[in-house]
């Protein structure tokens, strides 16, 4: 274990980049539906049990299956109504179990990025070869079923090893949602020195964290989204911001929750200067226009390795 993986350099918020998003937009807004598959009886990882009750944990399993059966159709209709494309954090096994779900996303031009194979399989205890194989398996499944290269990563159930981001970058990924240190994208240092970035993905506004961990009432969740938007929109005058709302069809799409969420979504979409983006689009725009500036500005300000960060390996990961 290490005290700090030194994945990025320090940059204070009042030193943020003067980002402008396509069309001169100030705030990049993206919605990340987590479309997951939880197994009824997975092998028990030595570091973490999938379910609190002995198998079969019907309550936990059925709670999540609700998302694919009921919640997702509702969520898709709502995002369609507001012209928002989902950037899906996908348990890649959904490609095999429910290909009809993938088709519905592809029809809509949604992005699919990797959230591992199952959300009941954790990286804890994997050696590098195992984690690489899991990462590549998921990326291949996404390519096979969507025709698009997987660009982003959110570790399954947010389970990481010291090598996770290195391995994902080496497999051809360009961005990660696993780091919560900023409201702008930042370079992420990986051992291959590939150009690799963090795209802000908010845990604080994640519906599962809000509803389940923090036990927030549905109407208050809507208010939290509006207040976060107001501040990020205002601060974007001095440097464009990213706002992400990570969702789970088994949480937000319940009948007692979706209307309050819709009000918040309508509020965000109704403002000027908002770019309705996907995670990949944000990463690519930043890589093209701001990545080098970010490194140049933060050079010598500690954290990270100069060589790795300023000497990218030949061949952008987008060629992979």
């Amino acid at each position, binding site marked *: 274990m290490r005290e700090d993986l030194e994945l990025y350099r320090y940059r204070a918020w009042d030193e943020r980049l003067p980002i402008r998003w396509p069309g001169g937009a100030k705030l990049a807004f993206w919605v990340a539906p987590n479309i997951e598959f939880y197994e009824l009886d997975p092998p028990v990882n030595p570091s973490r049990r999938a379910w609190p009750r002995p198998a079969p944990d019907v309550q936990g399993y059925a709670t999540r299956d609700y998302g694919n059966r009921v919640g997702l159709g509702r969520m898709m209709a709502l995002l369609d109504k507001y012209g928002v494309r989902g950037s899906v954090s996908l348990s890649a096994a959904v490609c095999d179990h429910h290909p009809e779900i993938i088709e519905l996303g592809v029809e809509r031009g949604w992005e699919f990025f990797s959230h591992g*194979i199952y959300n009941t399989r954790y990286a804890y205890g994997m050696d590098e070869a195992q984690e690489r194989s899991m990462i590549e398996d998921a990326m291949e499944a996404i390519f096979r079923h969507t025709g698009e290269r997987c660009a982003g990563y959110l570790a399954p159930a947010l389970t990481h090893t010291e090598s996770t981001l290195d391995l994902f970058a080496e497999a051809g990924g360009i961005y990660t949602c696993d780091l919560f240190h900023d409201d702008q994208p930042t370079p992420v240092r990986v051992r291959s020195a590939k150009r690799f970035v963090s795209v802000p993905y908010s845990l604080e506004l994640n519906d599962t964290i809000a509803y389940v961990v923090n036990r927030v009432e549905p109407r208050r969740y809507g208010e939290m989204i509006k207040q976060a938007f107001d501040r990020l929109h205002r601060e974007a005058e001095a440097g464009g911001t990213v706002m992400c709302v990570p969702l789970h069809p088994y949480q937000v799409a*319940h009948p007692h929750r979706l209307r309050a969420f819709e009000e918040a979504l309508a509020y965000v979409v109704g403002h000027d200067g908002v770019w309705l983006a996907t995670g990949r689009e944000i990463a690519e725009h930043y890589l093209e226009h701001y990545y080098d500036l970010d490194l140049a500005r933060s050079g010598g300000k500690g954290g990270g390795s100069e060589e790795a960060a300023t000497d990218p390996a030949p061949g952008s990961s987008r060629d992979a």
Partner: protein
Amino acid sequence: MTLDADHLRYPHRRRGMDHQRYDFSMLSSRPPVAWPGGAGVALWVNVAVQFFPLDQRGKPFAPPGGMTTPYPDLRHFTLRDYGNRVGVVRCLEALDAFDIQPTFTVNAALVEHCPRLLDRLVQRGDEILASSWHMDTLHHGELAVDEERAIVRKSLATLRECTGQAVEGWVSPARSQSRHTPDLLAAEGVRYMGDWINDELPYAFHTNAGELVALPLSLELDDQFLIGANLHSEWEYAAQIIDACDFLAAEAAETGHGRLLSLSVHPWLMGQPHRIAAFESVLAHLAGCASIWSASASEVVAAWRGQAA
């Protein structure tokens, strides 16, 4: 570190579910369901009539709402018993005032512990579903199948004899099941169960003793979940139920597809004097919603079964 190879093998990674109990189906892709009288939303109000034993084993987990202090936990035992004496009467008066039909899920041990309560429920004529013997006879993955079968048989026989009803519905304590529960229930004449909360409409559920109907009894809208587990206030509870009602009514009107609102209330919780007014406000809203059909569990199942392919 290295994980065993099993952790990277996926034997059930194939089309459909990772088990054989039911087929995958998205609500948004199903043919429409219509309710009697052209109602948009079927309303199933389930009143959980429960017995929590003082000598709780709590294996393999303590039942939600069960004993928590060292034996004898008179505090929780009597708080729960309050529901069967006071709370249930308050809840029934409220339901009757708004002409909303309850269904009762009953722990069979109450036939012995509170026979007069059972008499009252039977006299009303509302439908009674079985909910095992008591809240500590949990159906779970480590329970021997013979032991589970004995619990199912004893519970159903006791309730059938006491009520004179067929008792074809079931909700397990803590909505917990073993691998065998659906097979055992079907073999003992149960036709529908509320434990699988993965849907908002009935659906077909396979067992080795014939088909069951899964009739999901919402956990997310359960008073014990919202108030007891999430610590939301009773008025925040009311707001969420009202929002759910309005959402489903609008969705039914917009799509022409019938919807189901299933509410489970616990008299020991909702029947407290500081909460009952919030429950009454919910009932007033439901009663004022023109597209609602107040039904028993078996009426919902029968209406759905008549249309299911």
